Structure formats: structure tokens, C-alpha cells
């Protein structure tokens, strides 16, 4: 989109206003920079092989992230396995099957409302449904995975819908024209085209799930645990929970050493997930041209 370049800076009011707007933008950028610089600076010297492979400890030098790192990866993998088919399935129904505009509108409104529900309330949902009603054991991998799946489903559905919407109708018409059924059209024409967009949205949603703390506290996940989960019914901890537990400790070695080290590990994983998502989107945009 091109902008008109007439009417530039002409008087002090113009200049002052531009100055304010640039200043405001810098506040955001500088906050991000300050956060990253402080945290990375404090983490230097604390992230090493021992930190990645040890269980937590009350001695800062021996403390490690291993059980919560494994816990996070385990839970997020399950969330991915659950939310991808469910989210894409819902998106396919809304974009390809639904003929009732009332029902579609109802479900879409509902999804956008769900996206605005605070994450801690999903924790209460998990506690009330999966633990109290279904009787699944408190604080286990399976309950965490179910809860986080429900939390990110709205994001997965909306981004999958966008990806499916972007597939041109001409392709569908061509498939129907040679006698394909609706499912055949979806499977061999729509989905292959939409998969990069779906993957981008899903990875971003999983990154969101990986950073969540409050819902996991509500379902009773451990804030600090010494063994990594052995199965889906094992109790677990996740990196944000471990960070929460450590940030509560008053010792300097924890406040300015172990905690920022854990934050850096978490941020590196989240930024890598974002980078993968951006890479997929970029590659896909190139291919489409």
C-alpha cells in the first residue's frame, strides 16, 4: 500500500506530534530490548550442560531444568497431536461443509469468545471436568495436555480457517468437475494447499501453550519436580512453572542466575518455534507466486 507523501512536517505541532509517536514506539522496542538484555546478561555462565540435565536443587550451582524441560516437551507434543486434527477438523467443517449460515455464525462467535477467556479459567475447566468429573489424576501430563488443547483450539481453528479460505475456489471447482467427492476434494486439493498456513498457525499456538503457567497451576501440576514424567499419567512440571517457583526464591543466585537461565532456555525454544513458523510461511508465499 503506498502512502501519499504530501503534507509532510511543516510546523512545530507536526514535529512535536511525530516526535511523540516515534517516542511511544521506542518505549515498546526499548522495553523488549531491556527485558532481553537483562535476562540474557544475568543468565550468562548459568546455562550449561549441567543446568540442562540436572533436576532442581536448593543449591543454585546444582540446580537444573531437566524434569520441567522434558515435561514441557512431552505435554506440548501431546497438545500438538490432539489440537491439530481437532482444530483442522473444525476449520474444515466451517469452511467446506457447513451450509447453515446460522450454525456457522454461532460456532464462529463462540470461538472468538473462547479466545478471550482468561487462561486461568481454562485451568478451572480442566480441574472441574478432567480431574473432578472424569476422575483423571491431579497434576498429570494427560490433564495438562487436555487443558492446554482446549486453550489453544480457538487459535488453531481460526488460523486453519484462514489457510483453507485462501485456497482458490477454482481448484475446488476443477476437482468437483472431474467427479471428486467433497472429502476427496478436501484431502487431495484443499489440504495440500492449506497445510503450510495450518502449520504456521498451529506452531504459533503451541508456542503460546508452552509459555502458559496459570492453567497448569490450577490443574495441580507441580511447580518444581525432581523426576521427569514417565508416561501420560505421571505428575509433571513445565518450564514456566519451574520459573515461577524459582522467581519466588530470595537468594541472589536464583534471582540473578538460575531463574534468568531457565527463562533464556524457554525463550530460545519459543523464538525457534516462531522462526520455524515464519520460515514455513515465507517458503509457502514464495511457492505460490
Amino acid at each position: 500500500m503506498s502512502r501519499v507523501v504530501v503534507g509532510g512536517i511543516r510546523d512545530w505541532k507536526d514535529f512535536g506530534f511525530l516526535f511523540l509517536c516515534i517516542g511511544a514506539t521506542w518505549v515498546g522496542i526499548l522495553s523488549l530490548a531491556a527485558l532481553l538484555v537483562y535476562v540474557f546478561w544475568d543468565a550468562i555462565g548459568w546455562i550449561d550442560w549441567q543446568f540442562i540435565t540436572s533436576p532442581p536443587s536448593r543449591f543454585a550451582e546444582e540446580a537444573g531444568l531437566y524434569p520441567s524441560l522434558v515435561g514441557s516437551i512431552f505435554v506440548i507434543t501431546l497438545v500438538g497431536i490432539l489440537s491439530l486434527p481437532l482444530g483442522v477438523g473444525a476449520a474444515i467443517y466451517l469452511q467446506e461443509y457447513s451450509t447453515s449460515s446460522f450454525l456457522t455464525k454461532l460456532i464462529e462467535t463462540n470461538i472468538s469468545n473462547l479466545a478471550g477467556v482468561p487462561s486461568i479459567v481454562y485451568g478451572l475447566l480442566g480441574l472441574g471436568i478432567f480431574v473432578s468429573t472424569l476422575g483423571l489424576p491431579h497434576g498429570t501430563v494427560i490433564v495438562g495436555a487436555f487443558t492446554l488443547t482446549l486453550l489453544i483450539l480457538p487459535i488453531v481453528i481460526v488460523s486453519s480457517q484462514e489457510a483453507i479460505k485462501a485456497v482458490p475456489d477454482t481448484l475446488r471447482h476443477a476437482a468437483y468437475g472431474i467427479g471428486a467427492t467433497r472429502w476427496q476434494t478436501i484431502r487431495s486439493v484443499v489440504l495440500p494447499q492449506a497445510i503450510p498456513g495450518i502449520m504456521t498457525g498451529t506452531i504459533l499456538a503451541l508456542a503460546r501453550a508452552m509459555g502458559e503457567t496459570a492453567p497448569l497451576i490450577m490443574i495441580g501440576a507441580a511447580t518444581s519436580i525432581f523426576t521427569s514424567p514417565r508416561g501420560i499419567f505421571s505428575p509433571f512440571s513445565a518450564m514456566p512453572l519451574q520459573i515461577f517457583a524459582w522467581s519466588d526464591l530470595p537468594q541472589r543466585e536464583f534471582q540473578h542466575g538460575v531463574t534468568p537461565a531457565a527463562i533464556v532456555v524457554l525463550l530460545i525454544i519459543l523464538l525457534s518455534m516462531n522462526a520455524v513458523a515464519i520460515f514455513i510461511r515465507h517458503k509457502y508465499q514464495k511457492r505460490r507466486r
Partner: protein
Amino acid sequence: MVVEPSKLTSLTGKSRSLSERVIKWFFFSCALLSVITTIGIVFVLIVDAAEFFSKVSIIEFFTSTRWSPTIKPAEYGVLPLISGTLLVTFWSAVIALPLGVASAIYLSEYASERVRAIVKPALEILAGIPTVVYGYFALVYITPLLSKIFPSISAFNALSASIVIGIMILPMVSSMSEDAMRAVPNTLREAGYGLGATKFHVSTTIVFPAALSGIMASFILAISRAIGETMAVTIAAGKYARVVNPFNVGDALLKPIETMTAAMVEIGMSDVTGDSVAYKSLFAVGLTLFVMTFLMNVLSQYIKSKYREVYQ
């Protein structure tokens, strides 16, 4: 001519076999899951909150000024928690809304395409940082910094939490407002320039009012997010439930408070059992929180659809 896919597929590509129908039903149940989730949330909150209100009267819950669910004598007044939540929400909005709109004006009206392509995603990274990290940042870096300006500040205080939540919701405001401003057609700007207006006048008297519905919607969503924010306030703002006097700004901001969300985490981490009143109070507070954010989200959608300016 564009054929509506729904019309087209009613002629061709009909569900011809059993497997086609089974697949359709699978996808339908996926879509239905989101509705079931909503029903589940409402159901869980209402059922457990109702049990709570059978033990503690709803009048006491909304009028008592003391909250101490785990210390005897237990008292369940939600007012201190609501006041804490509103305090943090208000001050984070004071930080984020003007900064967000000003950034949006810069990105939409002034910045070159190249600057925008770098700055907008960079701001959005702020929204992707886990909230627990913001809590740590407020407690370990911001509060010590603030104590140089306000020596009387407590180690846990509402101000540091408000600042980080303001930073956290800033990209929501700037991104969504910028989208709304970019949707304002250039012809309106050109008309302004044609009358001899400066960029300042065009931005503030043409673009800003034209994008107002989108900007308001972004405000409400950001405020709703601040209300439901949990970890930053749990870590940085303390766990001291008190009714805040919003006009005594120093007392309100420099001392510990407790929000609804922080109180829920506190109960969630304590060893209360599943059938105690304290445990049930979790759901009563959760329901209050859910109703508040739900109303905000509905309002945001209403403003967006009602006052949406459709430009060709």
C-alpha cells in the same frame, strides 16, 4: 462470475457414500467441541459456584471487605480482589492505550514500509513472551529501579505489575489499531491534504476518527486481557488482599495488593481439599472473572460490528 461453493457443492460433490458421511460427522463434532468447551466452562463455574453460594451468602461475597479463605476465621469478600484487579487494569491501560495508539499512528501514517516491516513484528514479540517472564522482570528488575524513585515502595507492589502488564498489552493495542488505521482509504487522506492539512491534522482529525471503532475494540480487548492476566500480578504484586483506595495513588500503587487471578493461584497452590469451601470459592471468583471478561469481549465485538466503517 463467482459461484458460491456452498451452492456449487449442493449440485456436485455430494456425500455419496457412508465413509463420506462419517467423515462429515467427524468434522462436525470437531466444530461442536468448541461449543461444548463453552458449555463446559459455564457449567463447571456455575455448578461449583452454586455450591459455594449455598455455604457463603452471595451478599457476603459481594459486600464483605475481607478475603481470607485459608486463614481462620475464613472470610470470603471478593471486593478486595476486584479492587486489586481494577487498580492494576486501570494503570496498565493508562500506560498501554496512549502509547499503543501513538505507535499505531507512527507505523500507519509516518513509518516507511521497511521500518514498519521490522518494528511491527518486534512489538508483537512482546505479546508472545510468557507472562511468568513479565512477573519475574517486574519483581527482579523493575521494582528495584522504582525503589530509587519511590524509596517507600514495597518489594511486592501494584506499580511494577501495572507497568509490565502495560508493556504486555501494548502490542495488542498498536497492532489492532494500526490495522484499523490502514483500512482507512487513502482518498480520505488525500482529501485532507488537498485542503492544505498537515500530516498531524490528517492523522488526528481524519484517520483517527475514521478508525475509531477498531481502536476502541482494541482498547477493550487489551483491558480484558489485563483483567485476566495472572502470573505477572501473582509474582510481582504480592498476595495481600485489601480494598484499595484508588484516590490515594501512592498507597494504592506502592504497596502489595491481590487480584482475583492471584487469589485463585494462591488457593490452587495451597493444600485445600476438593470439598472445602475455600476450594469452591475458586469457582465463585472464577465465575466473577469470566463474567467480567466475557462482557468486555461481547462489547468489543459489538463496537466492531456496529460502528464498522466499510470502505471500498
